[in-house]
């Protein structure tokens, strides 16, 4: 069984939350970075909603994954592209779903190889819990607690929607 979860309230929540964090920290010129592929779609939307003049960056974390020694290299790796210097910048790192936190760790390692940012704010559309590392998002669209037979997946880019599946256990 597949159901859809309306994405718009989650995006609204992210936008409001981010504006709030940026204001509290006094950040006026952040740079957005999305993690491929879902995070890039969300970063694209947030970049427009926040009215940032600069293009957002795209990260492919395949070269930084901590499971390379078990599964080998991701065959569909594509080049990361950051059109700005991360050195000294306030970064908003965006992903669609956070679970173990390992993707975010890899992404932060990669960002630091481009230069030392002033700060990183983490925004994720959905938080599924099940963390394995001490990494928490600053802003979340929605927290979901799934049963083992349930799956959630962001599909896109057009139309961008959240698919909610029950595997029938």
């Amino acid at each position, binding site marked *: 069984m597949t159901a859809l979860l309306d994405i718009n309230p989650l995006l609204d929540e992210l936008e409001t939350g981010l504006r709030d964090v940026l204001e509290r920290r006094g950040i006026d010129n952040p740079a957005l970075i999305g993690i491929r592929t879902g995070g890039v779609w969300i970063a694209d939307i947030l970049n427009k909603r926040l009215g940032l003049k600069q293009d957002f960056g795209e990260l*492919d974390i*395949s*070269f*930084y994954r901590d499971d*390379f*020694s*078990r*599964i*080998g*290299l991701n*065959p*569909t*790796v*594509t*080049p*990361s*592209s950051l059109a700005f210097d991360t*050195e000294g910048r306030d970064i908003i790192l965006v992903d669609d779903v956070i679970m173990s936190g390992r993707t975010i760790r890899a992404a932060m*390692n*990669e960002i*630091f*190889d*481009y*230069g030392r940012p002033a700060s990183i704010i983490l925004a994720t559309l959905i938080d599924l819990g099940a963390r394995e590392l001490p990494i928490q998002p600053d802003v979340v669209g929605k927290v979901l607690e799934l049963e083992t037979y349930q799956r959630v997946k962001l599909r896109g880019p057009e139309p961008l929607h959240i698919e909610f599946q029950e595997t029938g256990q």
Partner: protein
Amino acid sequence: MTAIDPSPNHLQLTRGGQLRHFLTLDGLNRELLTDILDTADSFIEVGERSIKKVPLLRGRTVVNLFFESSTRTRSTFELAAKRLSADVLNLDISTSATSKGESLSDTLLNLEAMASDMFVVRHSQSGAPHFIAESVTPGVAIINAGDGRHAHPTQAMLDMLTIRQHKGSFAGLKVAIVGDILHSRVARSQIRALNELGAEEVRVIAPGTLLPRDVEDLGCTVEYDMARGMKDLDVVIMLRLQKERMEGALLPSEREFYRLYGLNQDKLALAKPDCIVMHPGPINRGVEIESAVADGPQSVILNQVTNGIAIRMAVMSMAMGGQMAERQQKQLEREGGRA
């Protein structure tokens, strides 16, 4: 990373079709070759960062085993391994253990006992890397950095990457390889790659004495006259005249060779106006190529060198990934067998 018929006999591939050694382009299909090129594209981007290093091979040991001297290939393999965060050991075997009488197998087994994960092998004997992968140290990933007259697969792949960068794709391309085909392992690998990737025509241009017998069987057309051969070319690849491999009188003289087969501006003008000029290096200026061409606007010779690092990073990480995935699989099978 699927490839044709990933049978267990296929030495280079795991049962899942992942690369685990890189010995030859024979048997690797277009999809896998394209995967290598795509992965290399991502590594080119890494080379442009402030920190040109990724942690993929952190804690792994790569040994450069050069039984035959080389500067460019060895140093780009070394840089590639270092940019993947591996520990690198460079051994110039011709001047070390073997001169004390140790056999090749013993040298390799000793290196394996030092927990090496990958050997990059250059050898004057065709088939040496294949032999090592099959019989000596099968648990170590073997990368062929040139063996005898047989193959030089990373050189051919960096050439393919350079062609794709400048021409977009291989469809419809007419490519010529000029010069000493007979002694060239590079030419063999290039012809194979160009055919697999779908180039329209691969031409070899050389005097009969510098062509192997039945050269057409490799998948190319033959042209003895350079002026005719340059017509309609999109890519011209010059080969180095391998003086150190010349045995007997294959050539009247270097001057004669240059007059007939050397690439100068007049001959280049016979090709398409956007024809690119390639050379695997080292260049013999005035023997196979004129300086004005080698340094000219159509030359992509230095791009080839930069691309060499990215291609070697791609092949090393893919082969190491395949080896480790395979070790993991065997471990699971052993555990499954006990349960």
